[in-house]
């Protein structure tokens, strides 16, 4: 590997837009301010006040709500005195038994597994950070959080549940379960946690002189 020349060192506030690649200086942000790309208006950085504590509190809240949303029945149906109530996991099991394995797997992943993994990974990253232990070991967890994010679809699931209840309302009496309300609250907690999270907190450790400005070649 060629030795890096001193003039290759880059200013710390220089960033490239993720959507149009324009190089620009990230402005110093006051609490609550958001920086956007000068050319394409893409999100660059946010400075949410009290980010670490708020994100931790909201993520822990979300984890509790997640447990309630999955342990209790979502909705029940009363048809001429016969009552059927299901939890989310039972609903997935019914699909699986009906021979709809790909659909069951899709629902299990997007509504149960990925949201949980995302919450756990965020905590694995944030708790050491809160305790003042910043290690490069948490980087893979954060990469996992980022790649899982598009696949957690709790809010779409809640709307889908509402549509199915409207379809059934003329057929039977609908009973909203504890987990239904927990799911609604979970969506709020997840949204606010996402807004409170300043990802720049993760990358505050200064780079070693040798690493700054050059790429590391693996093997």
């Amino acid at each position: 590997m060629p030795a890096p020349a001193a003039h290759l060192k880059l200013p710390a506030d220089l960033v490239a837009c993720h959507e149009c690649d324009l190089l620009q200086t990230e402005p110093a942000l006051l609490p609550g301010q958001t920086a956007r790309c000068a050319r394409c208006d893409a999100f660059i950085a946010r400075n949410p006040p009290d980010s670490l504590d708020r994100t931790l509190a909201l993520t822990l809240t979300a984890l509790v709500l997640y447990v309630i949303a999955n342990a209790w029945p979502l909705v029940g149906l009363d048809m001429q005195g016969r009552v059927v109530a299901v939890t989310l996991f039972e609903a997935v099991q019914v699909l699986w038994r009906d021979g709809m394995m790909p659909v069951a797997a899709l629902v299990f992943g997007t509504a149960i597994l990925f949201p949980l993994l995302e919450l756990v990974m965020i905590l694995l990253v944030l708790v050491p950070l809160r305790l003042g232990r910043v290690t490069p070991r948490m980087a893979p967890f954060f990469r996992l959080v980022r790649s899982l994010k598009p696949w957690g679809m709790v809010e779409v699931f809640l709307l889908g549940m509402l549509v199915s209840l409207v379809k059934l309302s003329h057929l039977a009496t609908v009973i909203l379960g504890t987990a239904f309300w927990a799911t609604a609250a979970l969506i709020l907690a997840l949204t606010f946690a996402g807004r409170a999270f300043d990802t720049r907190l993760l990358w505050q450790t200064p780079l070693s002189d040798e690493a700054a400005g050059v790429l590391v070649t693996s093997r």
Partner: protein
Amino acid sequence: MSRRALTAREAGLLSCHVCGQLARPPEGAVHSLRCPRCRAPMHLRKPASVSTTWALLIASIVMFLPANLLPVMTTTSLLGSQQDTIMSGVVFLWQSGSWPLAAVVFFASVMVPLLKIIALVYLTLSVQRRSTQNLLQRTRLYRLVEFVGRWSMLDIYVITMLVALVSFRGLATIEAGPGAIAFGAVVVLTMFAAMSFDPRLIWDPLAGRSTDPHPAHHD
């Protein structure tokens, strides 16, 4: 004084898609590069972006037909048995008077996948032609495609809840149909297609042209 807008690529820099770190690749090394800060693999652009997007788009177009033509569920009740496609489910909601929900389901299940495929075909073609027209509008279109894509999962969740709840032996049962698998495949394939498209390719044809300086702004 006017300075040319410079992209990271023109400056010979790679930006990390996870932590945003900029780095200069060592001479000649282009493969298996890792971010000096978070160790994520680094690429100038998403690898094989255009061909991967095309492959996933063609696969989703192929699945789009069975998704809309095959029944997504079968309802068996005292009145007999009835098969529903995505579209007949929308018609049912409309006729039973819940037209706002009918509009939501129609938009999420029929319009979003269709418009998403059309938009991605347009974006990929325009990138291949190295068009310099409507750069900002195309970037916004891409953001819209990424944002609304997940809402197509709506019908999968509706089917899941209907199948799980309506299981009154002798009175009424609902079973999922093969159309649901094809529909789930369309949603997943179009999401992967949107992820494999690199929006920076939209701006790449501008490289080398002279424009106004672009300091980042904040709001």
